[in-house]
């Protein structure tokens, strides 16, 4: 086995990629600044350190961090190329994310109280508190109220709430039998509301808050996570159909009565009608992807900076422009592998809480990628959501790494009873 591992060390390729990327970045700058090389060495040491730690201590699945570090490397190169200052900040965020990745691994393994029944109502309560705070004190950046300023640091509460929501969902499936039905007395008649309806309503309140914040992408993401897990774990067909109708009616209502959604759909259907105004962003993105061709223009030779918000939402267009369709497809393949690993981990676990949690995190990464990549290539209406691990943004990067740390902890199986057999699906 050792010889095989030595010949194909994907880890070396991540290192090699970073060496090349930062050499190129160094040459790209007008005044050759050796600080760039120093940042590059920092990145390489960081990835090396975390990877060796995982391998050496046998901290579960090694591929999760490998794949995500490749994604981060691609993202860092693009962001650094677009703006070295933002790139440096992103490197700092990555260092923070990597340490929180390890920290959340340790915390999750050391404290096995996350699935306790008491927390079932605490997760949504915490989410609603964060939502309320955001609506009351939040700042509006780019159409949506989604920023909260705490002691001078801007955070996006949505990134935290995503994780809380997955925990809440997982803990529902763990405790659904033992949760009491709510009894109501209205005009002498007893109504009993089953726990699944309470769960459904609480989940829709999450989405309702997101709609109030005009965070359409987030609402869609939550619904997809909610419904996929429902489809997997719930056998109640009637409830599922009710959800489909409810969501269908909700989105139809949104399309008919909310002008914001109408605008987005109009832009999606025909961005060329208002090319200098509302359609500017998406058309620039399409021009960028188109000008890239198969192999791209080469790093630093394209002009992705013409797209507004290119370093956050539209980073995929920049990758497609400068690394071509092949580069873009490579990125999608990496996400596919990451989600595959997550689902594989979730299949091996017996405990339903950890199973749902691992699955929830994997599909969160998958759907988020789908929503934003689908948006920038004009396959679905565009909604602002970050591309996990690649987009610029501290909250997004850190919450993605925390989620990955939890997945890593689940894959190590130290706090969870796992099936001893490895099946060869």
């Amino acid at each position, binding site marked *: 086995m050792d010889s095989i591992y030595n010949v194909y060390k994907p880890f070396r390729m991540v290192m090699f990629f970073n060496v*090349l990327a930062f050499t*190129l970045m160094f*040459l790209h700058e007008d005044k050759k600044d050796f600080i760039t090389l120093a940042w590059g060495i920092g990145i390489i040491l960081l990835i090396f350190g975390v990877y060796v730690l995982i391998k050496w201590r046998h901290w579960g699945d090694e591929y999760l961090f490998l794949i995500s570090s490749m994604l981060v490397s691609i993202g860092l190169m693009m962001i650094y190329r677009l703006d070295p200052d933002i790139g440096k900040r992103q490197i700092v965020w990555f260092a923070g994310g990597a340490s929180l990745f390890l920290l959340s691994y340790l915390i999750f393994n050391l404290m096995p109280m996350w699935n306790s029944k008491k927390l079932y109502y605490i997760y949504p309560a915490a989410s609603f508190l964060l939502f309320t705070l955001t609506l009351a004190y939040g700042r509006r950046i780019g159409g949506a109220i989604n920023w909260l300023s705490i002691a001078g640091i801007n955070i996006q509460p949505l990134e935290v709430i995503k994780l809380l929501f997955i925990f809440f969902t997982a803990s529902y499936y763990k405790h659904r039998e033992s949760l009491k039905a709510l009894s109501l007395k209205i005009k002498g008649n007893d109504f009993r509301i089953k726990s699944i309806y309470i769960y459904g309503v609480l989940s829709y309140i999450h989405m309702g808050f997101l709609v109030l914040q005009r965070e359409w992408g987030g609402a869609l993401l939550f619904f997809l996570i909610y419904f996929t897990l429902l489809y997997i774990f719930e056998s109640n067909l009637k409830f599922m159909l009710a959800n489909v109708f409810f969501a269908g009616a909700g989105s139809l209502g949104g399309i008919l009565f909310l002008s914001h959604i109408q605008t987005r759909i109009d832009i999606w259907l025909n961005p060329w009608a208002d090319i200098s105004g509302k359609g500017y962003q998406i058309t620039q993105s399409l021009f960028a992807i188109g000008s890239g061709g198969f192999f*791209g223009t080469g790093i630093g030779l394209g002009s992705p900076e013409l797209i507004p918000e290119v370093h956050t939402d539209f980073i995929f267009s920049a990758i497609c422009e400068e*690394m071509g369709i092949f580069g873009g497809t*490579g990125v999608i393949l990496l996400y596919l*592998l990451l989600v595959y690993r997550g689902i594989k981990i979730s299949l091996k676990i017996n405990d339903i809480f950890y199973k749902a949690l691992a699955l929830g995190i994997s599909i969160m990464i998958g759907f988020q990628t789908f929503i934003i990549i689908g948006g920038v290539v004009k396959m679905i209406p565009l909604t602002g959501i970050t591309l996990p691990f690649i987009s610029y943004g501290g909250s997004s990067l850190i919450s993605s790494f925390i989620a990955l740390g939890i997945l890593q902890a689940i894959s190590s199986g130290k706090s969870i009873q796992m099936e001893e057999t490895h099946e060869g699906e």
Partner: protein
Amino acid sequence: MFEILSTVFKYIFIIIIYYFVYAIIRLIYLDISTTTHTGKKLSGKNPYLKLINRRETLNFRVDESYFLDEEKTLGRSNKNEICIKDPFLSGEHAAFLRNKDVWYVSDLGSKNGTYVNDEKIDATPYELTDGDTVHLGQLNFIFVDVREV
């Protein structure tokens, strides 16, 4: 200068990404194929019993395969080396015995009997050869012996 370098590098970057994807898939694939049999690597030294039932149709825990590295008894009680909670098995159902390199199976007086190649066997050890089917309770096994003699 930078243009030439960047043009060369863009191909290298794409090659690295795809090679990385290939290497990861390869490693995952190797992981799967070497751990197919109860997590142990196939040593090629010991014969094993391979389950041919579909595991989903059985409502108790059973492994894909059981290695015969030493003499083992099979049954429902925990005292057996191979313990399967199949309600159609007896507490001590059958024994797998070895004489030098030859493996035998013998019935330990079970209620529902042990069948080798659809023939019911009794307490006298019955010699197993590669490809024999062993039927006990609801379970169907194939005796796999790929040792190089």
